C-alpha cells in the first residue's frame, strides 16, 4: 500500500501539492505510488525559476531506467525555485517522495484552482480505481 499523506492535495497525474509558509506558494512533487510505478529514477528534468506554466502544462520530465514520464503542472504557476539536489541525487524521488524528493516551489496564479485538486482520500480512490 503506497503512502498518501493527509493534508496534501493531489492530481490524477500523480503530483502532490503542499502548502508552505508563504500563502500563495506551494511545493510540488510526485507521489509514492508514482515513484513505485516508475522504479529507480535516474534523472529529473526541471524548469528554471521564473518560468510560467498553465494548469496541466508539462513543466518537466522524470526518467527511470527504461521509462520516462511528463510532469504536469497542477495549477497555473510561476516557478519560484527548483530542487537542485535532484540533479546530483535523483533517487531522492524514490527514497523520500514527499520530503527531500520535492521538485518545484511554485507561486499559484489562481488560488481557486486548488479546489479542483484531489484530497488524500480521493487520490487513494483514484489509484485503486
Amino acid at each position, binding site marked *: 500500500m503506497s503512502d498518501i499523506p493527509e493534508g496534501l492535495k493531489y492530481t490524477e497525474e500523480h503530483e502532490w501539492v503542499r502548502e508552505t509558509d508563504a500563502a500563495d506558494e506551494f511545493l510540488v512533487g510526485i507521489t509514492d505510488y508514482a515513484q513505485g510505478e516508475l522504479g529507480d529514477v535516474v534523472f529529473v*528534468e526541471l524548469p528554471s525559476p521564473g518560468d510560467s506554466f498553465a494548469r496541466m502544462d508539462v513543466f518537466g520530465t522524470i526518467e527511470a*531506467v527504461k521509462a520516462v514520464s511528463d510532469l504536469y503542472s497542477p495549477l497555473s504557476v510561476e516557478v519560484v525555485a527548483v530542487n537542485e539536489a535532484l540533479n546530483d541525487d535523483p533517487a531522492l524521488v524514490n527514497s523520500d517522495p514527499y520530503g527531500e524528493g520535492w521538485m518545484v516551489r511554485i507561486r499559484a496564479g489562481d488560488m481557486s484552482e486548488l479546489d479542483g485538486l484531489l484530497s488524500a482520500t480521493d487520490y487513494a480512490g483514484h489509484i485503486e480505481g
Partner: protein
Amino acid sequence: MSFVPHSDADRREMFAKVGVSDIRELYSDVPDSLIRDALPAMPDALSEWEAVRAIQELADQNHSLVCFAGAGQYDHFVPAAVDHLIRRSEFYTAYTPYQPEVSQGTLQVIYEFQTMVCELTGMDVANASMYDGPSAAAEAAVMARAVTRRDRVLAAGSLNPHYRKVTDTYLRGQGSELQGIPTGLDGLVDRDALAGALGDDVACLIVQYPNFFGVVEEIEPLAEMVQQAGALLVVVADPVTLALLRSPGELGADIVVAEGQPFGNPLSFGGPVVGLFAAKQRYVRKMPGRIVGATVDVEDRRGYVLTLQTREQQIRRDKATSNICTNQGLNALAATIHLALLGREGLREVAEVSTRNAHYARAKLEALDGVDLVYPGSPFVREFAVKTKENSRAILERGLSDGILAGVSLSRFPSLGAPDGLLLAFTEKRNRAEIDRLADVIAG
C-alpha cells in the same frame, strides 16, 4: 529468417483495412512523372558466368579518375585491413544492435568510435553515429532548438549548400527555417551581419570549419557572440583537418558534427557514409541517436550497454529527441578501424600531406592566367576555391578526357553567390605529378 511474401489475399485484406483499392493510392504524394508502371525489359535468366560478365561490362563503363573533388567527401586511402576486418562475420552487419547487451563486441567498437569522435572534436560526448554529415547538421539544429526552446536557426552562407538544404528541410517540418548569414570579403562569417541577426529567439548558428570554400573560420569569437545571445554554436567540421586545427570543443563549440566518410569509407559514387555527432556533456539528454556507455557487471567486469535510451523513440515515443534510433553500424566500424590503424600520428600525417599538396597546388594555379583564388588572403587547409575566366564546366569536361576530376564547379551552387570557378580538394593520395596535370587541365 525465412522471407514470407504477401499473397494477393493478404494485400486485399490490408487494402480493405486502410481503405484503399490499389497500392498506388499509398504513393499519391509521389509525382506521377517519377513512377514507372513497368520495369524495364529484363533479360532471360543467365548462368552465373554470364551474369558476372554482364555486370563486369557495366562496371567497366565507370571511369577511374584522379580525384580533386571534395566539397564534403574526400578521396582518402583506405588500407586493405579495414575491408578485411569489417567483413568478419562477428561484425558484418550494417545495422544497429537491437538486443544490444548480447553483442558486447559491437558495443565496444561503438564505444571506441565515440571516444575517437570526442578526441577529434574536443567534445565531451558523442553518439553511435548518424546517417551522414548533412543529417547530423540538421539533427544538431533540431537539438539546439530543444535545448534553448527557441525557434530561429542561423547558418553561415559558407555552409555546404547540401547541408543547408537538408537542415532547412528538417526545420520546415518543425515550422521553422534556416536563415543565412552573409560571408565577408575575407571568406569568413560577416560578424556585423551576425550581430544584427542574433536575438532572443535564435537557437543556434551553424558554421563550417573549414568552411565550404576551404577557409578556416574563426570559431572562438563566433562562439562568444552566439553564446552571449543565449544560443548554441554548431560546428560542421572536416574531421581530417581536425588533426591539425584546434578542436571546435577547445574553441567553444556546443555541438560538433562531421561527415565521417574520410575515415574508412570509400567515395563509392556517394555513399553509404557515416555522420559524426558530439556535444557538451550538459546537453547529452537532448542528443539524437544511440549512445553506448561503459559499466561493470555483477562480477565487476567491464561491459558495455546502450545508455540513456529514454531519449529514444522506442521509449519516449512522440517526445523522443529525434526519430533516429539507429546508427551506421558498418560504416562507423570502418571509421573506427581506420582511425585505430592510423593512430594520432598517422592521422596527423594524412592531414599534413593533404595540406602540403593543397598548398603546392595553390602556388601552381596562382601562376596561371585567368585563375584567381576566391579568398587569396585567408588561411586554408586542404581545400580552396578558384575563380576561372573560362567556364568551369568546360574545364571539368577537358579534365574528364584526361582522366582528371578537376574539382567541383561553383556554378552548381547558385545559392552561394560565388563567382564561377572550381572548388579543389587534396588528400594524401595525390602527388605532384597529378597536381601538375591538374594545372595543365585548368590552364587549357
